[in-house]
C-alpha cells in the first residue's frame, strides 16, 4: 500500500460511483483489491472524497458491485487458508445464470482476474454436457441459424469478402429455391441455367484452369439436355475436387464440426455450386436463359473469353486493389465506392458481375 494512503491511523474509505449515479464509500483495503480501482487511486489520485468518487465502468451496477465487494472483503484478508478460500468461492458462485453472466462482465471490467476465472469456470460447468437446445434456453440465445447453416458452415479464414459473398448467396439461394419450388415448379429451366453457370463459375474460380474449355462445354451442353445431367454432375464433382486441391481455393466446403451428425456431403456440395450460380445471376427475368451464347458472334465470343480469363486472374490476385479496376471494366464507367460490409453493395456487385459477363 502506498504510504500516503496509509498515513492515517483511522480506517480510510474509498468513494465509488456506479453508472446509475449512486455513490458509496467502501473500506480502502477492500476496494483496493480490484486492480482497476487500485489504478484509479494510485495513478490518478481519485476516490478520496465524495466529489472525487471513482466512476466505475457501466457494466458494474450496484447489485454487482455489492457482490464483488463481498468477494474482495473475504479474499483480501491475508491469513486465510486455501481450503477456506475454496469453500467461500464455492458458496459464492451459487447464483442464477443471469447474475453469473453479469458478475463475469462486471468483474472483467474491474480487471479482477481471480473472480473472472471463478465465474468462467462456473459458466463452463453450466455449458458442459448440455444439448444445444438446453444451452439456448439457459442463456436465452436466439435459434437463428438456418438448418443448412447448421450443417454446412463455410470457413472464412481471412474474412475474405468473396467467401462472405458466397455465404450470403448460398443462404439467399436456399430461400429462393424453396419459394420457387412452391410457386413455379420449373425444374428443367433451373437445371439448364445451373448447367452453364457451374462451368462459368468454375472457370473464374479456378482462374486459368480450363476456363475456355468450360465455356465451350456449356455451349454444347445447351443443345443436348440429356447429356447435360451427367456432365453437370461430373463437372461439379471435378470442381469439388479442384477446389479441395487448390490451396487458395475460393470455396472450401467443410463439414460441420459436429461429430456424429449426418452431413449431406456430396449432394450438399453440388447443390451449393448451383445455388451460387443462380444467385449471381441476380435477376433471372432480365436474362435470356438458354440462348445467349449461341447468339454472340465468334469474335465477340473470343473477346468475352479473354475478358473472363482476365477477370478470373484478377479475382484470384489482389482483391481490394483490383476492385476499382474490375468495376470500371464493364458498362459501369464511374468507379463505385465499394463497401465490402454492406448488404446493398454486395447486391450491387452481384448484378455488376452479371452484367460484365453477359453484356
Amino acid at each position: 500500500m502506498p504510504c500516503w494512503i496509509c498515513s492515517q491511523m483511522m480506517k480510510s474509505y474509498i468513494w465509488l460511483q456506479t453508472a446509475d449515479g449512486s455513490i458509496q464509500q467502501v473500506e480502502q483495503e477492500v476496494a483496493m483489491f480490484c486492480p482497476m480501482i487500485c489504478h484509479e487511486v494510485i495513478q490518478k489520485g481519485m476516490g478520496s472524497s465524495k466529489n472525487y468518487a471513482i466512476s466505475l465502468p457501466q457494466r458494474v451496477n450496484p447489485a454487482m458491485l455489492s457482490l464483488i465487494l463481498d468477494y474482495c472483503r473475504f479474499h483480501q484478508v491475508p491469513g486465510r487458508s486455501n481450503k477456506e478460500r475454496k469453500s467461500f468461492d464455492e458458496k459464492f458462485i451459487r447464483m442464477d445464470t443471469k447474475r453469473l453472466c453479469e458478475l463475469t462482465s462486471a468483474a472483467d471490467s474491474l480487471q479482477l482476474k481471480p473472480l473472472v476465472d471463478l465465474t468462467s469456470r462456473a459458466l463452463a460447468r453450466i455449458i458442459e454436457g448440455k444439448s444445444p437446445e438446453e444451452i439456448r434456453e439457459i442463456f436465452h440465445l436466439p435459434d437463428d441459424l438456418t438448418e443448412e447453416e447448421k450443417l454446412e458452415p463455410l470457413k472464412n479464414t481471412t474474412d475474405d469478402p468473396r467467401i462472405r459473398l458466397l455465404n450470403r448467396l448460398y443462404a439467399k439461394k436456399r430461400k429462393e429455391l424453396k419459394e420457387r419450388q412452391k410457386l413455379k415448379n420449373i425444374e428443367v429451366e433451373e437445371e439448364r441455367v445451373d448447367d452453364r453457370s457451374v462451368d462459368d463459375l468454375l472457370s473464374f474460380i479456378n482462374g486459368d484452369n480450363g476456363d475456355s474449355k468450360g465455356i465451350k462445354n456449356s455451349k454444347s451442353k445447351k443443345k443436348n439436355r440429356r447429356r447435360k445431367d451427367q456432365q453437370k454432375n461430373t463437372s461439379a464433382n471435378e470442381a469439388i475436387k479442384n477446389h479441395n486441391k487448390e490451396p487458395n481455393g475460393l470455396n472450401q466446403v467443410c463439414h460441420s464440426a459436429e461429430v456424429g451428425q449426418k452431413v449431406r456431403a456430396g449432394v450438399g456440395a453440388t447443390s451449393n455450386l448451383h445455388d451460387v450460380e443462380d444467385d449471381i445471376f441476380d435477376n433471372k427475368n432480365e436474362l435470356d436463359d438458354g440462348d445467349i451464347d449461341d447468339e454472340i458472334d465468334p469474335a465477340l465470343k473470343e473477346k468475352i473469353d479473354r475478358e473472363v480469363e482476365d477477370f478470373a486472374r484478377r479475382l484470384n490476385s489482389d482483391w481490394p486493389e483490383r476492385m476499382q479496376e474490375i468495376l470500371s471494366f464493364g458498362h459501369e464507367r464511374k468507379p463505385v465506392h465499394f463497401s465490402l460490409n454492406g448488404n446493398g453493395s454486395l447486391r450491387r456487385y452481384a448484378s455488376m458481375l452479371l452484367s460484365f459477363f453477359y453484356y
Partner: protein
Amino acid sequence: MDDVMSRDLISDLPQSIIESILTRLPIRDAVRTSILSSKWRYKWATLTQLVFDEKCVILSNDRCKVEDGLVNFITRTLFLHQGPIHKFQLTTTHLQCCPDIDQWLLFLSRNDIKELVLELGEGEWFRVPSCLFNCKKLTRLDLFRCEFDPPPTFKGFLCLKSLNLHQVLVSPEAIESLISGCPLLESLALSYFDSLALTIRAPNLKFLCLEGEFKDICLENTPLLVAMSVAMYMTDDIAEHFEQSSTCNFNRFLGGVPRLERLIGHIYFTKFLSIGDDLGRLPITYAHLKVVELNQVSFEDMKEILVVLRLITNSPNLRELQISGSSNTLAAIDAPDLDFWEDECPSNCTFKQLRVVRMTDMSGVPHEMEFIKFLLANSPALETMSISPCVYVMDGRLNMLIELLRFRRASAQAEILFIQD
C-alpha cells in the same frame, strides 16, 4: 416475447471471457457451441488452446471406429480453426503411428505452436516428423512414446522452457545436444531411458526429474537448479559399471547446485551417489536446501550412510527430512563399523532448523537406530520425529521402541510418533 426477460445473457461478453469459458470446456463441447446461434458460430474457432483426448469421440468397442472418429474430429477441428494455435495436446491410447499426426504437426508448425503435448499409445512408437524441429516458438514439449530423431542441422529450440520426454527413443548425443541447445530450459523431465549416460548443461535449469536406468549422470552446468527428483533403477550392466567407477559421483552430481531447495531420491539414488572416492570436504554448502527425501537407503552399506550424512551436515537450513530404509536385515544385523557413530561421526554439527523427520520402512537394524539417535541428539528445534516400521518386521518392534525411549533429545518439544499400520 418480453424483451428484457429473453435478452441474450452471454453472447455479448468480451471475446476474452468467452475464450476463458470455452477453454475450460472439453473440446467437443467447445466446438459444439458453433451451432448455438449465429453469433456463436465461430466463437470457438479462435481458441488458442486445443486439448484432445478420447472423450472427443463416442466410445465404442470397435477400436477402428474410435480411431477414425478421433482422427476425423481433430482434422476437422484444425481445418475450421482460425488464427494461431498456442497449445495442442493429444492424449490417447488409440493412436500410435498414424500419418494424420504428421499432417497435424505440419499444420501446427505453421501456426505458431508454443506448447505441444503428445501422449500416444503403446505399440509402434510414432516417429516425430522433421517439421517439429521448425517450430521456432516452442516453449513446452511433452512427448510420450515417440521416436525423436533431430536432423543434423537442428540446433535446438531457442524458446523452450519445459521438456518432458517419457519413453522416447532418442540417441544420448541427441539428448545432450538438445538440452544444451535450449538455453532457456527451466524444467527437464526424462523418464524410462535405458542405460543412459548423461551430462546436463543447462544454465537456466530449475527443475529436474529423472527416472530410469541411468548409467551415469553428471550435472555439469546447472547453477540455478532449485528442485530435483531422481529415481535410478539398476541392471546388471549398471551394477558392473558402478563397481568399476572411481569418479566421485556425489561431487559430479551435487557439486554444482548451490541453490538447491528440494531433493528427492528413489531406489538406487543414494547408492549412485556413494560410488567413487570420497574427496573430503564438500566444496559447497546447500544454504537453501530445506527438504530432503531419500528413499530406499540401505543402512547396511556404510557408504550410503556417509552420503546421507554428508548431505545433511552441509545443509544448515534443512527443515524436513524423510528417509525410507531398505536394509537387507540379515546383513545389517551384523553391523560392522558401529564404532563410527561414537568415534568418527561429526559431533559438532547441529541441525538448527530441522523441524520434521520421517523415518519409514525401518527394520530396527543397528545403523538405523544409531542414525535416529544422532538426529535426536543434534536437532534442538525438532518438533516431530515419526517412525514407521517396515511391514515385514513384526518381532523387532518392541526392541525398537525400547531403544527409542533411551535416546536423548536435544529438543524438549520433540514428539516421537511410532506409526503402526
